[in-house]
Structures are given as structure tokens and as C-alpha cells.
């Protein structure tokens, strides 16, 4: 009966994967897989790329998309130091208040402030975008199936619509958007930003960079998590081996009798 055990364990692992694929299969579009710095067990964020991605977000996306779960201080995770963060956050205007007269007032941002949202509320966002709501990007990579590949595909998925495909006013044709009609005009064009580090801002480069940045924003804990995971799992494997041989030794007299 022990011989069967390995088979049975495999069986349950397969059983799990089976469930998962059946879930994944329900989202029907396949996105081309990119080679991301952060994929895999040892993957880490390419900090330079993520910093460039932040620049793209700031100069392009943030006109419409907020990231309300992030604060400027969080950017220290991308390698900015305290002074840089102070200078950076001070460039934003924060409406604070009430002051001693009970009025709201505007002050320069501080690292502890959350990212400034482009719109005060969802209604305003819809009104400014023809009824479509530009989603918050704080969690976008985790909130979409195969998030990073999806975003990259979407950003590079703007094509001319086929002749017989009717694209209504205010909508745009995108091969990777469910239904192929998206309310967001193509956001990224070659040289849309001028990278501080001199990297050539091709469409592909920008889309990779901004996706890396957004992946970091979704899972800022990822590098810590993987690093701790390697330690914990190595520990547990050694522990398992010790426990196994202890068990064999303790059981030896019993097994001998049987």
C-alpha cells in the first residue's frame, strides 16, 4: 500500500492543477509570453526598468489612472533614497485640510502622501472619459489573469480595425481587449517620454518598463517574499530529512518485528 503513495500524492497535485487549468481556461484570450525580470522563483524587479516605468506612468498614464494604494514613500522599493523621495513628492500638489479656518488648502506633497489621483471621484472620471472608467492601477497586474503579459499585449495591441469591423466614436480597436473595443486611446508612442537615463523610448521599451513598474506596484513585497521563501523552504527540507531519518530510527524495532 506504501508503493501507491507516491502515485496518490501526484494524483492530488494533478487534481489541483486540473482545477486551476479549468479556471484559467475560462478566460479565453492567450497573451504572448514575455521574458520578465520578475518571473520565476528567483526573479527580481529590474529596478532601472521599473524607474523608467514610473516615469512613463507619471508622464503618460497618470493623466487618467490613479494609484491610490501607493504612497510616494513606497517608491523607496524602486531604489530611490529619502532625499529623492522628498524632492519627488514635493512636485505634487496635495489638497489637505481643513486648516484653522476650516478651509481646505493646497501644500506640496510629502513622502507619506498617497499618489495624487487625477479625478476626485469615479463619477468625475467617467464624465471626463466618455463614460468609461480608467481603472486604478495599484493592483492591475494581480487583478488580471496573466496580468503582466496581458498589460504588455494590451499596450501593443492597437491595430487598424478590419474593414468590416465597426468602431464607434470614442472607442478604439485593440486585438487583446475582450470584445476588441476599448475606451482608452493608444497611450504609448515612440519617444512619448524622454528617459532620464538615456534609454531609447521605443514603444516596446516603454510598454515593458511601465509593466515592470506596475508589477512592482501590485506586489511590492515580492522580492522579500521570494528571498524569505528560499530560506524557509531550505530549512523545511533539511527538517523533513531529519524528521524522516528520526522516524526510521524510532520505528526500526517495530518494523523489524513485523
Amino acid at each position: 500500500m506504501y508503493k501507491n503513495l507516491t502515485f496518490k500524492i501526484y494524483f492530488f497535485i494533478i487534481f489541483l492543477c486540473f482545477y486551476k487549468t479549468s479556471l484559467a481556461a475560462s478566460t479565453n484570450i492567450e497573451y504572448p509570453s514575455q521574458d520578465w525580470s520578475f518571473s520565476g522563483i528567483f526573479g527580481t524587479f529590474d529596478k532601472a526598468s521599473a524607474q523608467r516605468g514610473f516615469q512613463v506612468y507619471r508622464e503618460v498614464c497618470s493623466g487618467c489612472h490613479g494609484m491610490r494604494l501607493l504612497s510616494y514613500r513606497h517608491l523607496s522599493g524602486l531604489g530611490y533614497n529619502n532625499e529623492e523621495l522628498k524632492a519627488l513628492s514635493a512636485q505634487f500638489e496635495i489638497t489637505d485640510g481643513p486648516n484653522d479656518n476650516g478651509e481646505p488648502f493646497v501644500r506640496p506633497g510629502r513622502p507619506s502622501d498617497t499618489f495624487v489621483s487625477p479625478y476626485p471621484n469615479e463619477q468625475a472620471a467617467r464624465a471626463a472619459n466618455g463614460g468609461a472608467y480608467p481603472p486604478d492601477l495599484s493592483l492591475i497586474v494581480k487583478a488580471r489573469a496573466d496580468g503582466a503579459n496581458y498589460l504588455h499585449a494590451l499596450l501593443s495591441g492597437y491595430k487598424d480595425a478590419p474593414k468590416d469591423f465597426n468602431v464607434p466614436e470614442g472607442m478604439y480597436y485593440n486585438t487583446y481587449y475582450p470584445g476588441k473595443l476599448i475606451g482608452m486611446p493608444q497611450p504609448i508612442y515612440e519617444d512619448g517620454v524622454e528617459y532620464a537615463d538615456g534609454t531609447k523610448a521605443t514603444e516596446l521599451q516603454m510598454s515593458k518598463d511601465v509593466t515592470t513598474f506596475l508589477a512592482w506596484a501590485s506586489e511590492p513585497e515580492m522580492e522579500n517574499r521570494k528571498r524569505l521563501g528560499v530560506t524557509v523552504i531550505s530549512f523545511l527540507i533539511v527538517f523533513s530529512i531529519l524528521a524522516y531519518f528520526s522516524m526510521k530510527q524510532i520505528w526500526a524495532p517495530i518494523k523489524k518485528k513485523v
Partner: protein
Amino acid sequence: MSKNKSKNSVVEWIDYRLPIFTFLNHELNEYPTPKNLNYFWNFGSLAGITLVVMIITGIVLSMNYTAHVDYAFDSVERIMRDVNHGWLLRYIHMNGASFFFIVVYIHIFRGLYYGSYKAPREILWILGVLILLLMMATAFMGYVLPWGQMSFWGATVITNLFSAVPLVGESIVTWLWGGFSVDNPTLNRFFSLHYLLPFLIVGLVILHLVALHRFGSNNPIGIDAKGKQDTIPFHPYYTIKDLFGLSVFATIFAAAVFFFPNFMGHPDNYIPANAMQTPAHIVPEWYFLPFYAILRAIPDKLGGVLFMFGAIAVLFILPWLDKSPIRSSQFRPIYKLFFWILVFDCILLGYLGAKPAEGIYVLLSRVATGYYFFHFIILLPLLPNIEKTRPLPISISKPILSSSSFSTAAAVREKK
């Protein structure tokens, strides 16, 4: 162990007045356990440990969580981003739910395979089914707390099940919600109950253990221990074996928590709840999928709900449905075959639960649902009449159906 019983006068003083040490020694140390338990008997203790881990991480998470529709989602994200080790605690708790169900489902199927529900362990089994029910309620309400899209719509769909009750259905649902839709009052009470129910589970687990220790564990060949030669003390033999099982389990669990924390989750739950928009494809967590498939297989609203609850209710009367006096399916060739069909059937139901309710999937769900009930209600009572069982061994230590290696070894010894 008697030497340990002990020179320590403080322990003796306490034990004389409160015999807690005697009790622990008796139940966790000397406790006679069949010597032939296989690794499937690890899952009981694993389930207990997982429960403790869930309660501990849950308590610390609740220190940082805000049960209010405006703050719940953000407070969970604050846990993920700002609270020290918050991401670790949350991912342990989140994946812990899935692993708890994996462990408990294996534990249940082990019980089915080896006939652990049969006399005199009926109450033990029933307590187990009650624990399963409470686990489901707890897991469901816990899934609502992050207040993402799946939380909200899962809550809406599941609470709406009760609207199928004739006459008072609508009132029950309104009562569950504390309003006219899933909203802040619902979230608050779910949080309260999600905190409470695990402690009820602990209570049931204690009863489950009391019932277990009355007659001791069942074992792979399913016959009672005949005497000392068939049993060994729980410690150190099964403590070390459970520890080994735990270490392997923890390794797999850690791999999920640290490297694939969202594998068993759903991306839509990272979108804040929106009462105006249902996600395109809503599915429950994987551990509910078989039941969800049964619900959808029945073309009638009330019928679907009844069958779904019936799928668990039937487990309560299982000890009386299975009339065969033989416990282990090692000696029941036909039952063994149908057991594996049932396993496959449940997996198929789970698969179908994740699929949209259309086309071939509907038909398959009906067939699978049909088999599920056929298995318990018709097959099990009738099987003893037609099944020719294999001869039972005399005792655990002297299996007459011993492997050939045993007899050759004995023969070799004799020759010497």
C-alpha cells in the same frame, strides 16, 4: 515513560488536584495506536495543526483589518504593503484555507476508503461532517472579508441560495443581509461570525478526539486491535511520524505561500467590490466547486439548493447506508472500484463547477450528480448482497493475507 512520571513535586502537586498531566500522558503519550497506520492517517493531525495556524494568523490579521465596506479592501492592502510581515500572515491565512480543505478532503476520503465511519465510530464521523459544514461556512464568510469583486458577488450568490426556501425565502435573505443587498451590515456580521465559528470548530474537534479515543483509530485493514501486540504507544512512534508528515506538508505549503500565493485565488478579487457590475465569470473557491456543480445541475432553484445541501446531508447517514460489516476496502473488491469511481466523480464535479453552465457541461454535471447520490443511497445499501469479500486477517500483527515476502522470510528463518 513511567520514570518521567515524575520526581517533579510541582507537577505531582498539580496533578493530584488537576489530573491534567495524567490526562495528557494517557491521551498523547501512552495512547495505544494500531501499529499499521499508513501515511493517510497523518491528515487528521495535519488538519488540527492547520486549524491552529488559521486561528493564530486570523487573530493577528484581525488586529489590522477594518470591517467596513469603505475600508475593508484598503485595510487588507495596507496589511499587504505596510504592516510588518503583513503579506506573509495574509498569504498564510489565504492559502491556509485551501490547504485546510485539501487536508480535510483527503482525511474524509481516507475515512471512506477504510470504512472509518462504521460502528462503533458513527458519532466520530458525524462530528467530522459537522466540522466540514462549519469549515465551509467559515471559509465562505472569510472570503467575503477582503471585499473584492469575488467576495461581494460570492456573498450575493450564496446568500441568495436561501431565497429558494418556499414562503419565507425572501425574508431569510433580507435577514441574512441586514438590508436589501449585501452591504455593510452583511460584512460586519460575516466578520463577527468568521471570528466566532473557528472556535466552535475547535470545540467540535475536541469532541471528535474524545470520540476517537474511545475506541482508538481505525487502521488500514479495518479490524479491531486484539491486544497489546497490535498496538504501539502514540509517543514516540506517531508523534515522530506526524512530525515528519507535518514537515513535508509545511514544505509544500510554504512553496505555495512564498512562490505561488495567488495560484488558488482569483484575479477579480483584487478589484474592489462594485455592486453595479458583476464579473464576467464568477466561480467559487475551488473547494466549493463540486457542490456548485451539483447546484447548477438541477434545473430547479429549490431543487438545486436541496441537492447541494443533500450532498452533505447524505454523509450524516452514511454509517447506516453502508450495510457491509467489513470496514477496509482492501477486502471489498467491488466497493474499492466504486470508491475510485466516486473520487473521479467528485473531481469531475469540481471541474464542471468551474465551467460555464452550457452545452455538454450541463449533461455531464447531471450524470455526475446522479452518480454521487446513486453511490451513497443505492449502491452502498445494496452492495453487501452481491459483493464477495476477501477473507479477513486474524489480527493486525498476523495478517493471513501476508505478502509473499513475509512467508519467504519466515521460511528462510526456519531453515536457519
